[in-house]
């Protein structure tokens, strides 16, 4: 094995020697300290192998014995290197291509939005760009989970947004909220929630409610103007009601916080173990078992996709042992009440459309002696109820 490597490294020359005094030639050569390998006589003369560095030193012995030496074949690294050195351009090209590929493969080259029906892709892409997700940035520097969360907050029509990286392509997967669609009321403005109408402004269409009326969610507020049927043929032109209906809307939420509570919480400490998975066998290389008394496991497997759905049978595995700890909490009545109020208020905030002014807020304590602290938060807002039935 190592002989072969050494032979390859120094380079070998296979030569053919012809002459009358070949035995003397061999003796002279070996006396000069040159090593001959695989020396064999054939009809045409003597074939032998020699190190590349010794080839020139054969001359003296050849001259003395009137032997003619012809090179037959060359083998080894020095010849390979010389050949590559002659093709410097090709070598440089390979290096350039390799480095360009390495750099480009770390960048985001394309971003696509999938799964959206009503949301406009360009809008999603623009918002993503503002959050730092754009083409020609290093994909390693992006925290995709944070961007996905921020996007989801910005887009109320999206029920869920996930961002996946597939090499240089980033996919923003959107799952939209399913809103009820009422085909009969196309073009009509309907109430988005229940409330008491305070102000109506009609730009186009017929109002079906009057000020002071209580409306329920989905009720038609402004009916679209009748389509002008000038032509009996073809589809009628789409007519749309326009206007505002401002109303008082109430939101409420309840929350309860017990005075004594036992719960399991993540401590924030994580032990990471790495291993190899082959079929159903798992071999952990580091952190074989959880180092914590109580922990939760999170397994992430990295598999190499060779082509289409052919996967490399050996997968890399990362196991995060997340430490859990028991928490025993005792609260005073005041503390519990405050926490319940905070929780209820947060719940209410979720229901209210963003940017709507809050007119009044009432906090009611519903608890009695034997129950955990229960708080109800009621909020009154003044907002535009009119929305199109079919977005």
């Amino acid at each position, binding site marked *: 094995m190592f002989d072969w490597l050494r032979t390859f490294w120094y380079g070998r020359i296979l030569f053919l020697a012809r002459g009358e005094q070949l035995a003397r030639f061999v*003796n002279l050569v070996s006396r000069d300290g040159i090593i001959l*390998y695989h*020396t*064999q006589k054939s009809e045409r003369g003597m074939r032998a192998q020699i190190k590349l560095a010794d080839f020139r030193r054969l001359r003296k012995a050849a001259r003395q014995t009137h032997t003619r030496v012809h090179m037959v074949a060359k083998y080894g690294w020095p010849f390979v290197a010389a050949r590559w050195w002659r093709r410097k351009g090709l070598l440089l090209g390979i290096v350039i291509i390799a480095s360009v590929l390495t750099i480009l493969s770390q960048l985001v080259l394309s971003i696509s939005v999938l799964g959206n029906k009503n949301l406009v892709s360009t809008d999603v892409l623009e918002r993503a760009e503002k959050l730092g997700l754009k083409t020609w940035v290093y994909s390693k520097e992006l925290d995709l989970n944070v961007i996905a969360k921020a996007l989801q907050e910005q887009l109320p029509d999206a029920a869920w947004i996930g961002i996946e990286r597939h090499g240089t392509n980033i996919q923003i997967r959107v799952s939209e909220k399913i809103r009820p669609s009422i085909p009969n009321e196309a073009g009509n403005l309907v109430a988005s929630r229940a409330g008491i109408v305070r102000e109506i402004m009609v730009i186009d269409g017929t109002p079906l409610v009057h000020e002071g009326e209580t409306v329920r969610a989905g009720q038609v507020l402004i009916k679209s103007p009748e389509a002008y049927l000038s032509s009996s043929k073809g589809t009628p032109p789409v007519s749309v009601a326009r206007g505002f209906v401002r109303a008082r809307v109430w939101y409420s939420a309840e929350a309860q916080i017990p005075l004594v509570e036992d719960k399991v919480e993540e401590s924030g400490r994580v032990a990471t173990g790495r291993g190899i998975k082959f079929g159903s066998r798992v071999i952990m290389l580091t952190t074989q078992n959880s180092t914590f008394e109580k922990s939760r496991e999170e397994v992430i497997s990295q598999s190499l996709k060779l082509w289409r759905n052919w996967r490399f049978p050996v997968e890399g595995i990362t196991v995060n042992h997340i430490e859990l700890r028991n928490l025993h909490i005792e609260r005073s009545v005041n503390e519990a009440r405050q926490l319940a109020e905070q929780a209820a208020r947060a719940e209410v905030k979720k229901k209210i459309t963003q940017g709507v002014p809050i007119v009044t807020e009432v906090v009611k304590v519903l608890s009695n002696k034997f129950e955990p602290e229960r708080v109800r938060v009621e909020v009154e807002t003044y907002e535009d109820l009119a929305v199109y039935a079919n977005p």
Partner: protein
Amino acid sequence: MFKKIQTSVGEVLDFPPDVVGEGPKITITGRRQIMVENYLSVLNFSEEEIRLATAEGDIFFRGKGLMLKVILATELQIEGALSSFSFGGGEIE
């Protein structure tokens, strides 16, 4: 004279003969590998016969497809199907 003293000293001190003498040391492994140390020169060689000069006279290797695998100044390795091996030329005193 010197050779005689060398031999007798060697015998007294129990030296192995290849250290004392000038003669060749020939190692044959199976039928395919032959190692000759302490030879003087190659006299003739072909695929059927290799003749070497040593201090103890000429030695012949006969066989088929004989090849000098490595040739060094005092050592050589032969490979091939060996059929016979003999000494010749030098007279035994």
